[in-house]
């Protein structure tokens, strides 16, 4: 399964959708890391994520860690309630930088 990536305003926006689980989280991980390895700042759009499990969350954490190590920006945008619930349980809502939208990030600047 391939998740689309859109280049917008200097960011690679990874569009995750549907149910992110052990079956397709490796694909999510791959697309996130591929973008980061191109030295792109990455935002992961979770607005259309209906379900995410710990393997999906792990993909986000890997992206976060890779970005931090390589001085790249990594954030989440449009996090669905389903995804936010899991992030809160894992207390990762306090770790990831989360925006309502890419526009919000752009308005906030650096």
């Amino acid at each position: 399964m391939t998740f689309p990536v859109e280049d917008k305003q200097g960011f690679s926006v990874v569009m995750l959708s549907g149910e992110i689980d052990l079956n397709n989280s490796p694909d999510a991980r791959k697309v996130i890391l591929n973008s980061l390895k191109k030295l792109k700042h990455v935002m992961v759009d979770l607005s259309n994520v209906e379900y995410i499990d710990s393997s999906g969350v792990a993909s986000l954490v890997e992206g976060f860690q890779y970005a931090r190590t390589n001085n790249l920006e990594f954030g989440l945008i449009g996090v669905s309630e389903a995804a936010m619930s899991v992030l809160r349980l894992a207390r990762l809502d306090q770790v990831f930088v989360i925006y309502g939208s890419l526009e919000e990030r752009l308005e906030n600047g650096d």
Partner: protein
Amino acid sequence: MECNEQLVAVSFCSRASRLRLLRNVLRDAADLGGLDESQTEAMVLAVNEACMNIIQHAYAMDPDGQIDVSIFHEREALVIQIRDYAATVDTEKIRSRELDDIRPGGLGVHLINSLMDECGFIEAPSDGGNLFQMKIFTREQGEDNDISG
């Protein structure tokens, strides 16, 4: 434990591609068992995490293992039993990790413990494998199983 009624029993092979199928069954069973939306998603996530652990650890990603999930309706709760046929686990080694330790893996146990009212391994079957049981009380009986934490 007295189980009043078995709602459903499913068996599937230990492949990640089967988890979505399981989740759909769980959602329908939860509806039948009277869980609300938040409780349903809590139960679905917890059972999914438990089955993921079986696939990844008990069967070490061997796609030909068998996983049995049974859901029982008690008067005050739904009880989910998950059976695998892998080597008996050392339950002492299964722990939730510190959430301050930010790393990709190891969240499954924490999620299960957080989402379910009761959970744990019960007596291993005589023919081997492991039997894990979770319980979620209906809203009137139990603590708030709100998945938002």
